[in-house]
């Protein structure tokens, strides 16, 4: 039986086709201004990649911020639940998950079946989220994908406020203006994100290895900063940006 999990995030929309609990195909597109259109596009992409048709898909679970705006979904589930399941499927030993998405970050504690026991999310500002990295990259005129490598070259530790993304951007612009090396600034931004994430993780309680999912897990600079602060290595799940969609597709398998 074939199911679809679709995760409509603020920055990107991800879809996963699953058959008998195995991923058949996945796809990621930018959400842009119309999340329904992004969902249609990515759905078509996974169908094309797998050679299947819409009629083959028996059940659709949508997740992410745009989950309720999808007319062809059979059920909506929050991405917190989906990331819990998605991570558990890949590594059943993981009990604590950090998921940093475009507009929020979450620390999730799951039980031995992948069910969410407790979670906390960032509070009033996007300073600890993917959007903050986007703002940072733009302020320094470098690409989002270059941030990880850039921070590895940092030499002088700096501190950037983590209270507000807009205030932090002001700080970054000031640092750029006085000629502060870009790698040092990027490292400070990653430290700032890691600092907030560690607080969230400790609030839910770190139990065993920490797994990371969400698009920001692809940023090696943030991961390095987290590992420094936690003094332990972090398990980065493969295809972290589609882990929520995988969880959604798996839930769909159970509900179909």
């Amino acid at each position, binding site marked *: 039986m074939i199911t679809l999990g679709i995760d409509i995030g603020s920055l990107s929309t991800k879809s996963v086709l699953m058959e008998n609990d195995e991923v058949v195909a996945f796809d990621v597109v930018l959400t842009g201004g119309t999340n329904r259109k992004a969902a249609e596009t990515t759905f078509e992409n996974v169908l094309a990649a797998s050679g299947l048709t819409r009629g083959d898909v028996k059940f659709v679970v949508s997740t992410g911020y745009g989950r309720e705006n999808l007319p062809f979904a059979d059920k*909506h589930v*929050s991405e*917190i639940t989906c990331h819990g399941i998605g991570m558990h499927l890949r590594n059943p030993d993981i009990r604590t998950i950090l998921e940093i998405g475009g507009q929020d970050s979450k620390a999730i504690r799951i039980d031995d079946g992948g*069910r969410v026991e*407790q*979670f906390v*999310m960032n*509070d009033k500002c996007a300073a600890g989220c993917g959007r903050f990295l986007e703002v940072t990259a733009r302020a320094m005129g470098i690409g989002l994908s270059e941030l990880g490598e850039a921070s590895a070259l940092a030499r002088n530790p700096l501190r950037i406020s983590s209270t507000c993304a807009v205030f932090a951007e002001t700080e970054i612009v000031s640092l750029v203006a006085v000629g502060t090396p870009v790698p040092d600034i990027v490292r400070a931004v990653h430290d700032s994100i890691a600092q907030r994430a560690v607080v969230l993780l400790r609030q839910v309680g770190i139990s065993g290895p920490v797994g990371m999912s969400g698009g920001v897990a692809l940023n090696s600079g943030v991961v390095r900063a987290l590992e420094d602060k936690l003094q332990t290595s972090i398990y980065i799940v493969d295809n972290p940006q589609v882990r929520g969609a995988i969880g959604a597709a798996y839930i769909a398998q159970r509900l179909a």
Partner: protein
Amino acid sequence: MDFDSIAQQRATQYENMLRLIGRQRAPSEDAAPALAATRMRSVVNCDRIAEAYRADAKVAYVSEQFPTEIVFAAGVLPWNIESMSNMLAQSLDIDQVFRLTQERELSRDICSFLRGPFGMMLAECYPRPDFVLTNDQPCEGLLKTIFMSGKRYGVPTFALHTPNLLDQDALDYLVQQIEIMLTRIAGVFQSDPDPEFLRSSIVNSNRAREYYRKAALLLERHALPGVARELLEIFGMNYFGAAENIDLCKTLYEEAVVLAKAEAPTRPRVMWIGQTPGESDELLRHLGRSVDVLYWAPLWEANLMALDEEQPLRSIAERAIRYHWNAERMERDLDHISDAYQVEGYIIANTWGCRNMMAIGPTFRSLAARKRIKNLTISIDPVDRNNYAFPHIKNRVDAFLETLQ
């Protein structure tokens, strides 16, 4: 101020108030009250509110959880400045009210349950008081705001300082303050305190409280749609001491008995901890579709205790101290209530700027962890829409609800 000036000012304030309330946001299908007690409460409130704008009315501003039995005993109408915030939050003109507070340099970081009422005074919507009465619990911010209102109208102000610890010295101290306050109220209205009025007010309070308590106890064992909310509203309205409150609480109890027999299906119970949005709020309606929401404050031990009719002031003092946000007592209280009402989840709501909730929140979260109760902390502002919108938190609320399934 002379009688004619007061009459003119209160007439204007009444018009302003009606205009502001009349500019409501669009009603929803969930807005219609279902219980007779809810409708009765509306009538009682309308009557008391209209009366407070009459030129010859004796009006005292009071703060939340103030011992209103004393106010009713003095023949004075208590005007709870804070309890109207939710209703006023529904007005399309509420932004204008908050703008007035900011123009007077009242920080936006102050809880909107305090800023809102103060803005209502600036907008000349509340009736001018003859007296301002307050206490320093649940918070110092409330005390300071209500002092500002006394200063604004140039009327006598009296604050009860409530000790945190409950012992004989604390009770003596608080009783002494209440006695002084009674003398001052009498001085303002040039009449001696009448022990018979106080006795009658205490009896009224106890009779209402008995029905209130029995309704709360029924809620322990039965799903009673609407009753938890009505208990909250009666607690917030705080008309204990007024004769009408007996009928109101009796009606609620009688409806609760009928509902208990109907055996409504049980759903997961979630305890709301913190200041509460109005009943038609989007968040509460969202929660109500999948869980039964109970409200912690109306179930506090202090709200269920009868007053000692032989020693009323001492008994009022004890209740006031029990109301105080003493962390140990609150934790014990929540622990007990969670078991009694079989609560499966907590929503800990930090109203923007409420330092009390932010400070005591970790205690509740630790308790939830010990009791393995799912919990969610949210930052909201149910009154000032500049600080919060439901979509900000919907995602985490949905995830929390999923953990209860």
